């Protein structure tokens, strides 16, 4: 049965993946469909009039103008966002998605437009409230002695605690790879559901991007929450956030890269980042 199922699944997948490449011609005025989640403020979220708004919506509009294409934004649940790209429901993903080696195995990316460290957030009156590490930033490649010590400090402080994270994220990978065995990991369908449980005290800490936390912590919804420990980048967190694109559509990825280069050069990305995140989370060259 196992082999039988494997064969069927594999057959379906291989057929789909190895079929003749259907790379479209992304000429002037063609339509590019961009998927976003709509539940990850301030990157992309839904306002009370039901409209999709956020950093990536503004950026997408700017990039599409630069690429001289029509853009259509489609809302898609996070968990199926890569499979649906491969299935052709849309042509690009702009949903706070980090460029990781694991994802590069199945799709390609434009260059990064934003980079933001991952950081733990805890309740100010919770058990991890006073946790501090000696370094502010840990890059998960070629660790320095200080960085190794900081990771060990996190491990010691978080031992036996429950940490929440959104499903299918780089943050989930990090917890599974680095804090394996020390903490209980709870996975959530959306970051917003995780926030509800953090406030309710069902998790002791939550791991997500600093750019997500900062505006939340400054708003009413973030009352009683605070960041804890260093910001993490690199390694399992990938190399910044970019637009995810099907491998066959390298031409489209190149167009995005060129447009992002231009938008970074003239300060548009920085301006939008400051407007939405309150700090400059734009990718540096």
């Amino acid at each position, binding site marked *: 049965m196992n082999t039988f199922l494997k064969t069927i*699944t594999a*057959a*379906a*997948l291989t*057929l*789909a*993946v190895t*079929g*003749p490449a*259907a790379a479209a011609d992304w000429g002037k005025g063609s339509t590019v469909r961009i998927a976003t989640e*709509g*539940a990850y*403020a301030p990157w992309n*979220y*839904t*306002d*009370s*009039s*039901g409209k999709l708004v956020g950093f990536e919506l503004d950026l997408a509009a700017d990039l599409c103008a630069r690429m001289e294409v029509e853009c259509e934004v*489609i*809302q*898609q*649940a996070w*968990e*199926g966002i890569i*499979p*649906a790209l*491969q*299935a*052709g*429901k849309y042509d690009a993903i702009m949903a706070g998605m980090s460029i990781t080696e694991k994802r590069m195995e199945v799709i390609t990316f434009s260059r990064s437009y934003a980079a933001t460290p991952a950081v733990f957030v805890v309740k100010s009156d919770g058990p991890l409230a006073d946790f501090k590490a000696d370094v502010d930033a840990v890059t998960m490649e070629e660790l320095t002695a200080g960085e190794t010590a900081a990771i060990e400090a996190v491990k010691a402080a978080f031992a036996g605690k429950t940490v929440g994270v959104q499903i299918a994220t780089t943050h989930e990978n990090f917890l599974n790879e680095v804090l394996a065995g020390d903490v209980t990991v709870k996975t959530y*369908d*959306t970051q*917003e*559901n995780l*926030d*509800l449980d953090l*406030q309710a005290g069902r998790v002791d800490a939550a791991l997500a991007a600093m750019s997500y936390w900062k505006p939340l912590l400054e708003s009413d*919804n973030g009352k009683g929450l605070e960041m804890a420990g260093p910001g993490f980048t690199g390694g399992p967190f990938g190399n910044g956030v970019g637009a995810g694109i099907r491998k066959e559509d390298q031409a489209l990825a190149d167009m995005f890269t060129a447009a992002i280069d231009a938008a970074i050069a003239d300060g548009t990305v920085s301006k939008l980042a400051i407007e939405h995140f309150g700090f400059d989370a734009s990718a540096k060259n």
Partner: protein
Amino acid sequence: MSEALALLAWGDGGWGDEMVFGAFVTLQVATLAFVLGIVFGAGGAAIKLSKVPGVPLIGDLYTTLIRGVPDLITIYIIFFGGGQAAMAVARVFGYTGYIESDPLTTGVIALGIISGAYSTEVIRGAVLAVPKGQIEAAKAAGMSTLTRFHRILIPQVARYALPGLGNVWQLTLKDTSLISVVGLVEIMRQAFVASGSTKEPFTFFVTAAVLYLALTSLSNKVFDKAEIWANRGVRRV
């Protein structure tokens, strides 16, 4: 209380209009999926009642698989794998483009497949409930297969199947909530989004429950009326 009402206000300031819009999407998906399910159900019943050896097994496989596997898993499989499977089939026929599939279409297909498995059993039961003697009598009266079908079988199958199909409708309507996890903005997804944004999940899930109650109650009435209509020529015992 007034705070909750403000959250549910109509227009751009509140989520009332979005929730009601979600209810329309729910109704739309449920209706389309239910109708598709009846088509699958009629086909499934025909396969299950087939006298060709081996053929009924295909029908059994369909109903057993769908009714034995959680609907959530079926939906995930169709959402994640369905597009690729459809493309694989299309490529066999030489089509190389991408097949457009928005969450609505995929949701309708997924729910239609699930609803169809239950409809298969209902329709099969209804066909079996039509007395054999009537078919024989119609044959003896010289009716063609087609005439027998639309004069004798269909009207009675419809009547016998109606209560069961009412159950299938309720199931399909409630199953639409599962499509929310894969992104279709119906009642449930709208409630997720609104409670995430306002941090007031209780208000929005109660609202969602009320909307579902309204939809099920109203559709119950419709099915009751339809049953009375379908039984208009039948003597009450």
